[in-house]
C-alpha cells in the first residue's frame, strides 16, 4: 500500500478561509515515520484548523494534505473517515473521554471503531504503560486531570495508529506535569511505533522535541 520512504504527513500550499477570511495558511511541511514534530504558533495562528485538516475533519480551501501517501483532502467523506480510523489517533486538550464508559471501555470502544475488534491484551498493556491499571474501571469524572490525560493518550494509541495528533495536550498542566506528559507521549508512541504531531503554544515542550514546525498568524504571514 505504502512504502516506508513515503512521508507520513505531507502538507503543501495549505490554506483555509472561513467567510472569506484566511484563518490558516501553512508552509510546506513533511514528517517521515518516527519524526515526532511539535507544531508551534501563537493563539489564532490556525493550529487547530491545521490539525482538523490533517485529520480530515475539514476540507481545506486550497492545497493538499497527504497522509501515508494518500491525499486526505481529496477523499470523499466515507473514505476520509476510513483513512483517519486506520491511521490517526487524536488527543484533545479537553480529553473527550466518553463519560458513560470506564477507562477500559473507552479504550475498547476506540479499538472496536478503528479495528472492528478488541485486543484486550493491548488495552491492558497500554493502561499499564500510562500507569492507570488501578483506575482502569473508573469513570472519567472520577479521574484527576492528569489521570484523564493519560487515559486519553492510551485511547489514542489503542488502535496502534501510525500517527498520533495531539491538540494542546499540556496547556492545562503545571510545569512538572506538562513535561511528564510530553515524556509519556514520547514513550508510548515509541512503544507502539506511532509518530507524534503535537500542536501547542507551550514552550515548555520545545526541549523534548528536535523537530518543530511553526505556524504564523495568517494576518502576519499574508
Amino acid at each position, binding site marked *: 500500500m505504502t512504502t516506508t520512504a513515503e512521508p507520513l504527513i505531507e502538507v503543501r500550499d495549505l490554506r483555509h478561509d472561513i467567510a472569506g477570511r484566511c484563518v490558516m495558511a501553512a508552509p510546506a511541511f513533511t514528517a517521515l515515520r518516527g519524526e515526532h514534530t511539535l507544531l508551534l504558533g501563537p493563539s489564532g495562528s490556525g493550529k487547530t484548523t491545521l490539525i482538523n485538516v490533517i*485529520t480530515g*475533519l475539514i476540507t481545506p480551501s486550497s492545497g493538499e494534505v497527504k497522509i501515508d501517501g494518500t491525499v486526505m483532502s481529496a477523499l470523499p467523506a466515507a473514505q476520509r*473517515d*476510513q483513512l483517519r*480510523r*486506520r491511521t490517526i489517533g487524536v488527543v484533545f486538550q479537553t480529553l473527550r473521554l466518553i463519560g*458513560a464508559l470506564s477507562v477500559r*471501555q473507552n479504550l475498547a470502544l476506540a479499538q*472496536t*471503531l478503528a479495528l472492528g475488534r478488541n485486543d484486550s491484551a493491548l488495552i491492558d498493556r497500554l493502561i499499564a504503560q500510562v500507569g492507570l491499571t488501578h483506575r482502569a474501571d473508573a469513570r472519567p469524572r472520577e479521574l484527576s486531570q492528569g489521570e484523564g490525560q493519560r487515559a486519553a493518550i492510551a485511547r489514542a494509541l489503542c488502535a496502534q495508529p501510525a500517527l498520533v495528533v495531539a491538540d494542546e495536550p499540556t496547556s492545562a498542566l503545571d510545569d512538572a506535569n506538562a513535561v511528564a506528559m510530553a515524556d509519556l507521549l514520547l514513550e508510548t508512541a515509541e512503544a507502539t511505533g506511532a509518530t507524534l504531531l503535537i500542536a501547542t503554544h507551550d514552550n515548555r515542550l520545545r526541549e523534548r522535541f528536535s523537530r518543530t514546525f511553526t505556524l504564523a498568524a495568517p494576518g502576519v504571514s499574508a
Partner: protein
Amino acid sequence: MTLAGLSLAYLRDRALNTALNILLLTLSVATLVILVLFSSQLSERFERDARGIDLVVGAKGSPLQLILSSIYQVDVPTGNIPLATVEMLRSDPTVAEVIPLALGDSFRGYRIVGTEAAYIDHFGGTIAQGQVFTGNYQAVLGAQVARQTGAGLGQKFIGSHGLSGDGHAHEETPYEVVGILAPTGTVLDRLIITPVGSIWAAHGFTPPAAEGAAEDHDHAGHDHDTHAHDDHDHDGDGQQDHAAEDHDHGAEGEHAAHGSGELEVTALLIKYRSSMAAVRLPSFINKQTQLQAAAPAVEMTRLLSLLGVGIDAIRAFAVLLMATSGLSIFVALYSALRQREGDMAMLRVMGARPPAIFGHIVLEGVLLAAAGALLGVAVGHGVVAVSAATFPQLQDMGLTAARFEPAELLIVLAAISMGALAALIPALKVFRVDIAKTLADTR
C-alpha cells in the same frame, strides 16, 4: 465495547431518567394489554356460552337480565314461567330444541340448575366420573365446582335458597353427587346440574321421581302437543293462543292434582330449526304472551356496545399515555444527545461513520421502548393474574393471564416503533453535524 454496548452504557449512565421512561411506557402498555386480555377473553367467553342458543324465553323484564341470568348465570332471573310453555314451544315446527332451566338455588355460591341432560350436551359436556343423573336429588357437578368444593361421587350436599349462598338451606332435601363433568371452558364448569324435578321438590311441590315427573309432564303435554299440532296444520297463529289456553287448563289440573303451586321453570333456551322462527317467534312471544323472548346475539351486542364506550375511553387514555411516554423518550433522548454532541463528534473522530452513530442513537430509543413494552406485557399479565385470583367473578368469567393475544404483539411492536421514532429526530442530526465546529463549541 461496541456502539450497541455504548447505547446501553448511556442508558445505565442516566439510570433514573431511563427507569422513569421505562415506567411510563410500562404503565401504558400494561393498560393496553389488560384491556386486550379482558375484552378478548370476555367477548370470546360471551360467544362460547351463547353459541347455538338462538333465543331465550323467560318472564317479562329486562331482556339483558334474562340473557345474563339464563345463559351466563351471572344475574338474578327475571321470574318464572309456566312449565307448559316448554311443550308449547316444542310443538312449534320451527323450533329444533327447547332446554328448560329452573334456577334459584345454590351451593357455596355455585348455582344449582334444574334442567335436562340436553343442557350438558349443549355445551359439549362429558362425564369425567360417575354418570348423568337419573332421578331427583341427583347432581352432576361442573369441573370447577368439583375442584373448588372438593366434592366427590356419592357426597351429599344441601342446596340453599337464593343464588348468593346465604339463603335458607333446604336441609330436608340433600342432593347426592352422581357425576362430575370434564372441563368445557364454558359456564357449565361452574354449575351444579340436576333434574328440574329436584328444584320443584326442594321448593315444596310434590316431589315426583324425575322420571315420573317427566312422564307426567310428557303426558300432560302430549295431548297438548297433538292438539297444538293439529291446530297448527289448520292455521298458523291462532294455534299459539289456543295452546296457551290449553296449557293453563293443564297447569291448573296439575296444580290441583299436586295440591301446591303451578309447576314452573325459570327460562327456556331455544334453538331454531328454520330461519322462519327468528322472524316470527320473538315478536309473537313478546306481543302475544305474558312471556319474554330475548336473542342472545342482540342483547350481547347491546351490552358490548355499552361496555365498549367504557373500553374505548380507557383505550384512548392508554394510547394517550403511550403517546406521552413516546414524547418523554423523545425529550430524554433529545436533551441527552445535546449534552453528548461532543461525544458524538469524538466518535466521528475515532472513525465511526454517521450511519453507525445514527443506528446507535435509534437503538437507544428502541432499547428503552422494548424494555418498557416487555415489562408492560409482564405487568399486564400480572395484574390480570392477580385480579383473577382476587375476584371470583373474574375467574367465573374465565379470565386467565396465561393466554397471549396477537394484539399484544401489535402493542409491543407499536411501542418499539414509537421508541425508534422518538429517537429519529435527534439521531438524524448526526448526518448534519459539523465535527470541527462541534469540537470547537463543546468543551
